[in-house]
């Protein structure tokens, strides 16, 4: 298991590195349209061929990876922080605070997030650059995706709050804040970390869903979502299997993120 985890981490590191070096590895750029070479096959110049507008597919894949791999962890971090604040507060304090926060979590979980995201996006300003647009997309994902981690962390906080060591600390006159920072937080930290790692592939997939619907990252910036949208034509994909590269990469990244989460965090 450890070797698998190390392999996954190595692969992720390699992917991050190649995404960061996208400009050097694929100098053609992701936006330039080689209009005389639309839908070209892989060649020495275009390693993964070109799309219908003649844009270098390899460059778009690397730049798309950069977008998804950098912003999904940021969105995951945001969702985890909000989720932790809400979940631990609810689980630790209990009572009416817990009841209120639990209802809010239920509300967020019951709202169809895709429609909510569409509605929120529809009222955002139009004149934003592609990079800002992708930032907004992931910010929204982070702001809307906190309820899942919050529920897990609420349960963890309640469970740990009832442990003997917490009772002893309370009996010795330990204050609430100290209990929280010195006893509770260190014990929920593994769950917090697991939630963070698990959220990353969820946000990558969420962006991919939005991109597939044409509502993700704005043109000409690529992301895995809008690259996957090009796979809708089954026949074209079968005749040009190199077009499956974004899907293969997405699957690999998802598998890697799942493998690097320590399973012992869930065995409690």
């Amino acid at each position: 298991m450890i070797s698998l985890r190390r392999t996954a981490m190595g692969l992720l590191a390699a992917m991050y590195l190649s995404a960061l070096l996208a400009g050097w590895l694929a100098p053609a750029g992701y936006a330039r349209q080689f209009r005389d070479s639309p839908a070209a096959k892989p060649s020495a110049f275009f390693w993964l061929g070109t799309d219908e507008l003649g844009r270098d597919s390899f460059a778009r894949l690397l730049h798309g990876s950069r977008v998804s791999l950098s912003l999904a962890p940021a969105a995951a971090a945001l969702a985890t922080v909000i989720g932790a604040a809400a979940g631990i507060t609810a689980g630790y304090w209990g009572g009416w605070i817990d009841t209120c926060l639990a209802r809010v979590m239920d509300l967020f979980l019951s709202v169809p997030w895709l429609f909510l995201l569409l509605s929120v996006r529809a009222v955002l300003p139009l004149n934003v650059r592609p990079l800002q647009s992708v930032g907004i997309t992931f910010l929204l994902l982070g702001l809307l995706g906190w309820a899942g981690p919050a529920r897990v962390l609420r349960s963890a906080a309640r469970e740990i709050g009832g442990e003997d060591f917490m009772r002893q600390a309370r009996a010795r006159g330990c204050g609430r804040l100290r209990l929280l920072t010195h006893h509770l937080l260190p014990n929920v930290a593994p769950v917090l970390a697991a939630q963070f790692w698990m959220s990353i592939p969820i946000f990558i997939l969420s962006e991919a869903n939005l991109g597939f619907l044409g509502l993700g990252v704005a043109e000409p910036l690529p992301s895995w979502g809008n690259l996957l949208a090009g796979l809708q034509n089954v026949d074209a994909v079968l005749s040009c299997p190199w077009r499956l590269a974004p899907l293969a990469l997405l699957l690999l990244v998802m598998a890697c993120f799942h493998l690097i989460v320590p399973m012992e965090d869930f065995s409690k």
Partner: protein
Amino acid sequence: MNTRWAVCALALGLAPSPHAARLPEPAPGGELRFCLHAEPKNFNPLMVSEEPEEVLQYLTGGVLIRINRQTQAFEPELAESWQVSDGGRKIEFKLRDGVRFSDGVPLTPADVLFSLRSVVDPALHAPAGEPFRTGKGPIVVSQPGSHRIVMALPAPMAGLERLFDQVAITSARAVEKSARPDEMPVLGPYRITGYRSGSSLLLARNPFYWKKDEAGRRLPYIDSVRLSIQQNRDLELVRFLRGDIHLINGLDAESFDRLAEKHPSEARDAGRSLESEELWFNQVARAPIPEHRKEWFRSRPFRRAIAQAISRADLARLVYRSHAAPAIGPVSPANLSWFNAKLRVPTFDPDASLASLKAAGFSLAGAVLRDRHGNAVEFSLITNSGNKSRERLASMIQQDLARIGIRLNVVTLDFGSLIERITRTFDYESCLLGMVNVDLDPSGGMNVWLSSASSHPWNPAQTAPETSWEAEIDRLMRAQAVEPAFARRKALFDRVQEIIVEEAPVVVLVDKNSLSAVSASLGNVAPAVLHPQTFWNIDRIYFRGGTGR
């Protein structure tokens, strides 16, 4: 008749032509299958509003006058003849004799009176009746003779005949039965015999259909039509490739090429259609956008420079795989009667575009175009999400405009949000959408080109025209709408097209081709650019060999 004249008569038309002799004999029978892309909302022939109901009306309804989808000429149907008089205020029909409903009951002038009166009744709000209500005052429908019906309008209307292509002739008892479509008597080639909500409709040949072929056989040739309700266009193509269905209207370029690769003879490109893609700038005075941008969008040199900087040929070649053509003007050459043939495709010339922008006070500093106040020229373009072609168009326009230093931010929105912005809040800068000219006649475009119209794209519902050229368009459009002489109408509408090209409030980008799929087992299918492209002559389509595959 002397012998010489008799020989001439035979040579001209009475004798079968050698071409006709070579054609295979249409054999009756079989079941034609194709898809509806949505559930019909109702079966009342007077309340047709959307595509599924239009298809059903075309297959089952009878009309007084039909526009031939191929020649775009008027043809007599239930009206044997007609005459427009009083400068377009009155139309008189002579009804065809011996026409029966599908239940065998004869069509009477009372039924025609009922149909026409219902359609123009303001209380009924029949969609087909809206275009008739242009003038103030009542529309009077009367029966001056045993087989004659007259409709009198309060104001003259040019091209009045065309409106009757959309008016189904029915009867009071048919409308009463429209909730049970399988019992509803009709006058068209088919009648509805089965309906499974969300799944399919089955139509059977109308045994009393009035039309016969040249050999005297009663039409239609095909026994039944099965319409599957299928929203997903990819699945529709898969079903066609499997042989489950026989026709597809309105294929996209990518699907068309997929089909052409496998079955070249079944992929049919009828050439330029009446569907175009276009871009316009928000010119609404109260729009919540910065003033300097409004100033650009209201500047004719700016709009023309943008039009000149976009490579329409590249758009047609790459986005539509050459199944489109660079647009010439607001009317496609597919509109045989009304297209202004003097217009030419605007030239793609980024250098000339930049030069005209510089002459208008813009300047290129590095790679950024700036206006006379130093503002970088940057604006957003909205289009609907999920439409791959439009997203690609936007991306190509983005690159073309970048060459002249303009930054374009492409924003895809769900359709509801987009419509809200362009019709209500006006919170947008430019928009990329498609336009379909369903009505060939210029009067059909009154709701678009008049400055007071709610669908006037760039600045709708103006209380008074805000520019002199819009006032001129209003004047020309109103004049053509009441001008009875075709040549004078044509001259007036030609000028409208010229003004739109000169002023470029709408940059028409490409005219898409009419692409369809037609099974090789079908005979007599001649796809046209007008709806319904493949089955406009449904009563004459037949299966080679008599039965469907």
